[in-house]
């Protein structure tokens, strides 16, 4: 499978909390839930309750957290993901973006150190996808969560990631900051690089003195200005 994982690196990654088959076998999934949160692709299949508030509290209730603390965490998680006003709605009354936020809140409430999201923007339109990515980025920047994102659509995600892991046929083949990883070899594997990156690869081949692999439009335009300015 040709997967791609931008990795948000935030401070210390505790050694024994690797998302790694070996470690997981030693602990039950329930135990791991407080350390590693998972958000799945399809928001519909990870909302269990008939109200958003109950859903966000679900994990905490399972863990036997005391009522007052649980309510506090639920309110906090809903506030961070921007869904406080939806607390009494049922999952099927929500839009795709709102559902994803609710799923993220439900995982966030358990206060994991690491959060993994499997193609969370797959079913969302571009504008909503950007909003969700902003929420996810906030988790990383403001709250220090190590964030692992599995994604195909790199155009917008790359800007938020400070590390990219590329897999091909079950092995990790590239690992590093996006500017380094998004070089020719990545393109040859067949990854959908951001259009600006591909453009610069082509311009480089055409003889333009390109020195970087831009991952955002801003980077690309600055680079072009520099080149034309010289």
């Amino acid at each position, binding site marked *: 499978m040709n997967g791609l994982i931008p990795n948000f690196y935030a401070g210390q990654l505790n050694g024994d909390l690797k998302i790694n088959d070996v470690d997981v076998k030693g602990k039950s999934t329930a135990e791991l839930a407080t350390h590693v949160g998972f958000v799945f692709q399809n928001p519909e299949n990870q909302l269990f*309750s008939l109200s958003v508030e109950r859903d966000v509290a679900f994990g905490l209730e399972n863990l036997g957290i005391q009522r007052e603390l649980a309510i506090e965490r639920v309110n906090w998680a809903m506030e961070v993901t921007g869904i406080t006003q939806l607390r009494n709605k049922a999952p099927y009354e929500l839009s795709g973006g709102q559902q994803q936020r609710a799923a993220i809140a439900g995982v966030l409430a358990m206060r994991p150190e690491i959060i993994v999201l499997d193609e969370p923007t797959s079913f969302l339109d571009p504008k909503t996808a950007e909003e969700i990515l902003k929420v996810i980025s906030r988790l990383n920047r403001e709250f220090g969560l190590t964030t692992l994102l599995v994604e195909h659509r790199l155009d917008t995600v790359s800007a938020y990631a400070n590390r990219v892991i590329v897999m091909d046929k079950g092995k990790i083949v590239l690992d590093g900051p996006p500017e380094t990883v998004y070089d020719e070899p990545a393109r040859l594997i067949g990854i959908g690089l951001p259009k600006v990156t591909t453009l610069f690869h082509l311009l480089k081949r055409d003889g333009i003195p390109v020195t970087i692999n831009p991952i955002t439009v801003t980077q690309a335009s600055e680079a072009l200005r520099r080149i034309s300015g010289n």
Partner: protein
Amino acid sequence: MSLRFVEGFKFTRIDSPIHRMDPRAKFIVTLGFFATSLMFTNVYVLLIIFLAQAPLIILAKTWRRWSRSMRGGLFLGGFIFVMNFIFGTSLALSIAFTLRFFAIMSAFSFFFMTTSADDLGLALDQIHVPYVVSFTFTTAVRLVPTMALDAQTVVDAQRSRGLELDKGNFLKRIRNYIPILIPLIISAIRRSVELAEALESRAFGANENRTSITTLKLHRSDYAAMAATVLGVVIAIYVYFYLPLPNLIIPFKTPQLF
């Protein structure tokens, strides 16, 4: 016909005193109507029991849907009446049985229209039904709209490949449902697996003692409703055993056909 019938048992979130009542109290009330309906075969009493629910229905602001579902139940009610009457039951008694059907159906419709599956799950929890049971129930209810949409999509997809569900003899029609059932079942299984994964990652089953952020509390109005129901049942029992009642007598019997 059938869809309107089912609508009378669907929950909608409305703000009414009845909706705010504790589900346990509501269930006692429903049971009260149920028990008293079973007790009597007197047409007048059954009519009173049936009509006594009306103020509650109005208070719950579900009058329109309730009356629609009653109309939906006319077919079944009529069936009960006709079956009884043909096989020799007196006209009055047949009417009584039909009224009893409506009284019971209405009582349960009242309960389900005003109680969300979530609250029901909570109530079951608080009377110490195992969590797995109440969770299964709530999840099943939660999945109904989702799976209904799935079913519609599968039907659409297969019809778009030329499948015609309304043609052919009986056997062919049944076989035509295979391309509908299989994707539905597979979808349901896939969905369940995904749900299970999500459950696991939210620590489902981690702790024997599950907490809940919402708890049901019985208020004065709930106690009052329950007390009123108990009183009503006691009166009913008294009436049944000690009071002679005028009954509807219609001197008409079906000719002996059998």
